């Protein structure tokens, strides 16, 4: 029973070590792309077989002493994480950047283990170690292109920002620990609800929130995001944008809903003014993210930075759902995070193709896309419109769920109402910049003038991943409850 609950992590961790061993033992003389291909195939097969063999019909398992909680729904989330990880691994084949292929794969998989741990932990120490496992691997992955100064710079900046945030978060946890003396989220909630909340507990919650805000790149803790996205290789950037965001939101939803819920303990909803200050903090962060993210995204000329800034805005929208702090809202945020992660993976894959094709990731390079590959242009449109929240796509339902859950909560109706209204206005602005890219892609461009032959140099496997992502977004847009029931494990 216990084994089943941690099976995904164990599989992935072993796979990481296996891949590392195989690569270092036998493959060092192979060419980079051949090694990547082989390792990708190995990973895909291993994870695929594990997923098929996995028994998905079981009762939720909770191991209170370990602070571990697993259920079929959580396992599905981990499956999604594994799939997104595979996607970013395959995407790493788009460019050649390292001789340490085995290490790259092992680190990515270890980071994925960290991400999976975040999905089912309710234990603060475990949460922190999981976060650090994820973050540390990401710093290295960002700087993995050792021949590129930009990559190293991005890695160092990411590391310093992340280090300060991690220290802040740890300090917050230490204060929270002092105020409550507990490690498990449900017990923390009980302690917080039991008496008047002490100032150090408020400070602890605040500092820990700041650390979370870094992980989900909410403004004003987002400043590392564009630099890291731009400097990293496509595979790493895709991993940061999809898996890391998704897992961080899964953890944050858990923490806010189970651990810091002012009304979390039944029968004690009267905390009133003494509630921990994270709601105010996240309201501030959400507003800042929505404003700054959307405005800065409008101004970008590089596609990667554009994705980063629009991701900041999306983090703001998701925070609106967390502020509502209901069970429905937690699930809707997960839903949003999943659709966002899939869309981001697709967009970063697009940016990889764009860079290979045009030599830079300038948005203007999308001109004539339609002429060159109709398939890619249509997929690009699906990703962008889903992120923008146009109805028949999954992104719309993500927004719909989050905002309606927020409006339904009875915590602070007026504040939340204004936040939702602001989000909607901002998403109108956002639509403009998303459409700008769509229009660029569908504009005619003289190929002869640009000196390029028609046809897009994208690997078929990348195309397949892109197509799969686009298809998922359309599919979940038409049948939104499919994903929701997956996440709920029903």
């Amino acid at each position, binding site marked *: 029973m216990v084994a089943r609950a941690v099976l995904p992590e164990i599989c992935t961790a072993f796979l990481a070590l296996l891949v590392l061993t195989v690569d270092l033992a036998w493959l060092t003389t192979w060419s980079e792309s051949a090694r990547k291909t082989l390792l990708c195939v190995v990973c895909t097969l291993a994870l695929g077989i594990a997923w098929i063999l996995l028994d998905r019909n079981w009762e939720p398992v909770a191991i209170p002493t370990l602070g571990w909680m697993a259920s079929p729904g959580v396992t599905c989330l981990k499956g999604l994480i594994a799939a997104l990880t595979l996607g970013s691994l395959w995407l790493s084949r788009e460019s050649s950047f390292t001789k340490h292929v085995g290490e790259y794969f092992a680190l990515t998989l270890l980071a994925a283990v960290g991400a999976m741990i975040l999905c089912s932990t309710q234990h603060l120490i475990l949460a922190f170690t999981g976060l650090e496992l994820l973050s540390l691997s990401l710093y290295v992955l960002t700087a993995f292109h050792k021949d590129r100064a930009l990559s*190293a710079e991005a890695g160092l900046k990411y590391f*310093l920002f992340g280090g300060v945030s991690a220290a802040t978060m740890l300090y917050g946890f230490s204060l929270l620990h002092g105020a409550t003396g507990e490690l498990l989220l449900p017990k923390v909630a009980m302690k917080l609800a039991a008496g008047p909340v002490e100032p*150090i507990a408020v400070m602890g919650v605040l500092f820990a929130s700041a650390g979370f805000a870094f992980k989900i790149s909410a403004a004003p803790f987002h400043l590392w995001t564009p630099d890291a996205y731009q400097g990293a290789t496509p595979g790493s950037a895709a991993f940061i944008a999809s898996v890391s965001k998704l897992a961080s939101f899964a953890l944050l939803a858990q923490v806010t809903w189970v651990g810091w819920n002012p009304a979390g303990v039944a029968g004690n909803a009267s905390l009133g003014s003494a509630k921990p200050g994270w709601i105010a903090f996240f309201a501030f962060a959400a507003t800042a993210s929505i404003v700054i993210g959307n405005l800065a995204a409008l101004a970008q000329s590089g596609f990667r930075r554009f994705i980063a800034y629009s991701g900041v805005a999306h983090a703001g929208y998701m925070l609106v759902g967390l502020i509502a702090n209901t069970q429905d809202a937690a699930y809707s945020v997960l839903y949003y995070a999943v659709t966002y992660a899939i869309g981001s993976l697709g967009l970063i894959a697009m940016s990889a193709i764009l860079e290979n094709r045009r030599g830079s990731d300038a948005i203007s390079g999308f001109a004539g896309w339609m002429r060159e590959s109709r398939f890619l242009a249509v997929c690009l449109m699906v990703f962008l419109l889903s992120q923008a929240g146009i109805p028949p796509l999954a992104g719309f339902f993500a927004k719909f769920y989050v905002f309606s859950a927020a409006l339904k909560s009875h915590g602070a109706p007026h504040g939340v109402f204004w936040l939702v209204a602001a989000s909607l206005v901002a998403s109108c602005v956002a639509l403009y910049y998303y459409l700008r890219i769509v229009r660029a892609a569908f504009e005619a461009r003289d190929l002869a003038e640009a000196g390029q032959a028609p046809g897009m140099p994208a690997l078929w496997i990348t195309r397949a991943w892109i197509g799969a992502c686009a298809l998922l977004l359309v599919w979940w847009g038409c049948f939104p409850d499919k994903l929701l029931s997956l996440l709920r494990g029903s």
Partner: protein
Amino acid sequence: MTFYLALSVLLFCVGLAGVLARRHAIMALIGIELMLNAANINFIAFWRHSSAADDLSGMFWMIFSVAIAAAEAAVGLALVILVFRHRRSVRLDELESLKG
């Protein structure tokens, strides 16, 4: 108790000030280490003043955080060296190729 908390607060802020003020990347790293250590003071102090007799959680927090700090230092210094190879300098204010 207040003594320990105040000590840790001061240590945390000294570390933060170091990160914010020094130009050298390794000094920023030292600052981060100090910030992590500030948290450790809290953990140990809270462990000592904890109400439950067999509660060792503060202790374990501290042990894990030390391990993490060591790992962070290793990765951070590797990054610093990497940047130094590219630029022959690790001044933080000279790292501005990525912006906008």
